[in-house]
């Protein structure tokens, strides 16, 4: 990127993060939130939000306004500092996660070669926040919820890592930007009209990844830690006001971010197949892709987030032991076999 003034690397990164947050995350959050709420309302034969703004489009702002007005209650017997910090940690994990996601040839916050490694490491920080929230609330329901969450998130971290490994083996890199470029410039058996999205060969990996994401997000059918009809929202029980809002935003934002990551890993990310425009290398990509890329990404993310929510609103939830059994006895063996097959094909062809 050539600019009139020379900006040091840290300055560039800061600008990217701030600009990205304002330009990408806020509108994307609003659109995704509205889209998901409308979608699930139609699934449940109702209209959903209609009052705030035209066709309920300002619902997110209305809700933020409502939650900000509420009193921020800390239970008397809670561990106050931990209790207050917990939602922030969960939200920070979401923002750290979005930092590595590329949105276009130059439109990325940061890119480095350990991208996937970083992503997997950062995504488990939210576990810490949830455990903190559950433990410090001085509430038995919260405690049960927090413990369940910790057990579940650790169990599902593993199939997630293993399912991503298939992509890493195929791409030969852990850099998310390079993975996108490879998917859009490669060809399937000489046919390059579609690029080579890894979902074609890593379909099993994709399924395992999406199931693990569902569990990481503690969405139904894996929402044992929240279980509003049973643990009365688990670790969130004691939260109110803007701290609850932060949990709430983090829940939706993380769903969006994981959908972004899934689309980068399996669906070709921001790219459109390079053969369409005759691009052959990174440098020959036209500049307008920096604007079109985020739109392509958000479209793919909406589809994936839609699937996540679709499953969420049509399935009942697993019991804790069934959930663990599913992770250890089904998902992990399946993804191990997937890695083995991928490695064999990689070496053979």
């Amino acid at each position: 990127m050539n600019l009139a003034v020379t900006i040091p690397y840290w300055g560039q990164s800061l600008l990217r993060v701030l600009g990205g947050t304002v330009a990408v995350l806020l509108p994307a959050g609003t659109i995704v939130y509205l889209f998901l709420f409308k979608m699930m309302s139609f699934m449940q034969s109702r209209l959903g939000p209609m009052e705030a703004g035209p066709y309920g489009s300002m619902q997110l702002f209305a809700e933020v306004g409502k939650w900000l007005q509420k009193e921020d209650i800390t239970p008397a017997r809670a561990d106050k500092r931990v209790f207050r910090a917990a939602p922030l940690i969960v939200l920070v994990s979401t923002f750290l996660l979005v930092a590595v996601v590329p949105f276009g040839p130059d439109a990325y916050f940061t890119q480095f070669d350990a991208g996937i490694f970083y992503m997997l490491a950062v995504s488990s920080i939210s576990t810490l926040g949830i455990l903190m929230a559950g433990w410090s609330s001085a509430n038995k329901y919260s405690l049960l919820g927090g413990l369940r969450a910790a057990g579940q998130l650790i169990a599902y971290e593993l199939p997630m890592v293993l399912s991503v490994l298939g992509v890493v083996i195929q791409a030969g890199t852990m850099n998310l930007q390079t993975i996108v470029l490879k998917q859009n410039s490669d060809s399937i058996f000489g046919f390059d009209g579609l690029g080579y999205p890894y979902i074609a060969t890593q379909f099993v990996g994709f399924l395992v990844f999406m199931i693990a994401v569902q569990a990481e997000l503690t969405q139904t059918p894996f929402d044992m830690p929240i279980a509003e009809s049973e643990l009365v929202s688990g670790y969130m029980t004691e939260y109110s006001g803007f701290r609850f809002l932060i949990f709430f935003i983090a829940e939706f934002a993380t769903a969006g971010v994981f959908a972004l990551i899934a689309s980068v890993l399996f669906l070709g990310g921001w790219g459109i197949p390079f053969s369409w425009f005759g691009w052959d290398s990174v440098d020959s990509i036209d500049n307008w892709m920096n604007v079109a890329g985020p739109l392509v990404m958000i479209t793919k993310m909406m589809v994936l987030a839609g699937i996540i929510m679709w499953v969420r609103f049509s399935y009942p939830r697993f019991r804790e032991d069934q959930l663990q059994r599913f992770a250890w006895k089904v998902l992990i063996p399946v993804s191990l076999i997937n890695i083995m097959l991928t490695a064999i094909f990689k070496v053979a062809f």
Partner: protein
Amino acid sequence: MTDIADRQKLSYIAAQAADARLNVELETEGMTLNIGPQHPATHGTLRIIVRLDGEQVIWAEPSAGYMHRGYEKLTEVRTFPQVTALVNRIDWLGSFANEVPFILAAEKLMEIEAPPRAQHIRTILFELSRIANVSLFLGDLGVQLGAVTPVFMAFRDREHVLNLIESVTGGRFHPNFDRIGGLKDDLPAGFITECKQVMKKLRNFCDEMEDLLFGNEIFQSRLRGIGVIPAEVAKQYGLSGANLRASGVDWDLRRDQSLPLAYDKVEWKVWTHPDGDSFARCWIRLQETREATKIVDQLLDTMPAGPVMAKVPRIIKVPEGEAWVSTENPLGEMGYYVVSKGDLGPFRVKIRSASFNNVSIVPWVLRGVYVPDVISILASLYFILGDIDR
């Protein structure tokens, strides 16, 4: 039967033994968890005290009475026709069904019988309130297990039934429509065709529920083999209704006793299930909703002509005597023991409501299950707080 002091002693001993077991085997502290009185799974204000070892329940005790409204006492200062306005608030989801056994008991004491058309309409409304009640159960079951969508479908389709009830009685939840000797009014014009359409919709709803919930693997794995109640135990605790039939006991008061209701004029099946687990209880209710729609359809076809009110005096004085009438309500057996001294109002009314007995099995059935199963078992036992506390 042990008296109350003895039972308290026994439950204290059980709690102590549970603690002792914990400390010896695992050297961990148990945790007492109050499920309720304010908890989404208790449909109101039932409090269940459970002692947990990790997430396993080692001892549980329901504590009812947070919503006791004293209906038995209140009936003593009401006249007979006024009582129906009280009692249809007992099981608030199927209110009309609460009125019927009381009115039948009063009619039994007065030795009058409602004309055939009134009996038909009574039975139709009785079954409609069963459908309204149980269809909401099916949706609520989904919510308890984490599936949000079924409850919206249940509310959507229950609305049709409530509209029907409203078109006849003027009230959606508290009809207060049954009278000693018959009914307040005849059916409105166009009711029969409309009702038939709604019954078709309800059958579709049942199919939808079967697809969405009962066929779901997660749903089945959550409910099958959980909370098994053998037939003997179910009888000992006095369970009734679908909870009893799910344990394989073929017992249905609609078929087994001859009341002045129109059940003997229609063809229908009493479903039983051999398993006795939570899934069986839910499945029985699903089938019963279907049977109820069939009963209503047939009753609409065979509706006799005639008046809807027998000849009763303007001021109702019920002769001296005692009567017990119970019917198969949506939640189970509901009965009234009415004692009259020949006054305008009853001398004493004893209300036997189904949920109170159904919940009494909770300490037995919850022992040894996990916390998530507590919720699914409570949901499948299906109680309504008004029906427990009266």
